[in-house]
């Protein structure tokens, strides 16, 4: 029973992580590709970590909870790196499917024109 549950969780986790990477390969431009790895991974890694907690907690060595820390660190670092990547892309004016925000279009007020930021 437990093994069934673990297998399902691991397969589901792997599936979502795979879909995330698939998005990285299939989507059209830099900004949409950014969504794949920051997103599907939260659920994919979440399912894998729940499986890990269940497995190590039922081996008789007491509750194992330090997987929670992995989630915590992931939730702190993933959005920050995504934000920095997107910001850098706006500065460099990477080709975008969506019209970029006004600041990036206006040569005088755009992110690129500002220095010392």
């Amino acid at each position, binding site marked *: 029973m437990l093994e069934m549950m673990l297998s399902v969780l691991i397969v589901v986790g792997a599936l979502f992580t795979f*879909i995330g990477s698939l998005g990285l390969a299939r989507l059209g431009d830099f900004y949409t590709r950014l969504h794949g790895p920051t997103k599907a991974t939260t659920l994919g890694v979440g399912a894998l970590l729940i499986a890990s907690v269940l497995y190590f907690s039922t081996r008789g060595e007491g509750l194992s*909870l330090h997987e*929670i*820390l992995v989630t915590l660190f992931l939730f702190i670092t993933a*959005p920050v790196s995504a*934000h920095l990547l997107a910001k850098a892309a*706006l500065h460099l004016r990477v080709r975008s499917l*969506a019209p970029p925000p006004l600041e990036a279009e206006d040569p005088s007020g755009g992110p690129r024109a500002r220095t010392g*930021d």
Partner: protein
Amino acid sequence: MKLRLLPHPILTPVLALIWLLLVNSLSPGQILLGLILGWAIPVFTLRFWPERVRIHKPLTLMRFLAVVMYDILVANLAVAALILGGPKHVKPAFVRVPLALRTDLGISLLANTVSLTPGTVSAWLSPDRSHLVVHGLNVNDPDALIAEIKHRYEAPIKEVFEPC
């Protein structure tokens, strides 16, 4: 005096808890060590944390966390479907979200939340901190997206961390 000895009352138990999770044990010695670390680290890093964090409505915070967890779960499925459905169906767009939040903590929490919930990534903060530029993966109605971000995420964060 109280400020010098215990500058961040919330950080102390959080650090102690993180320590206990790191060592994966609940023995009295580790709890004591965790509490000492939780007390010492804020005291010695006081200069990096000029703002004192206060949580005003713990219940609202709990509800907010539950809402975010639920959104991550549901919207993850939506993004997975979008990716599998093919790149031709996505309609990416940048939207400008006007910010009501004023503190560093509030804005970074909102930006993090927006990036964590699938379908949106915070991309740029205007230099005067009045707008957050958000990139949406599939935006049919930009105004609805802005309203949702403001209502679902910004309002509770403001209530909990910036009640004035």
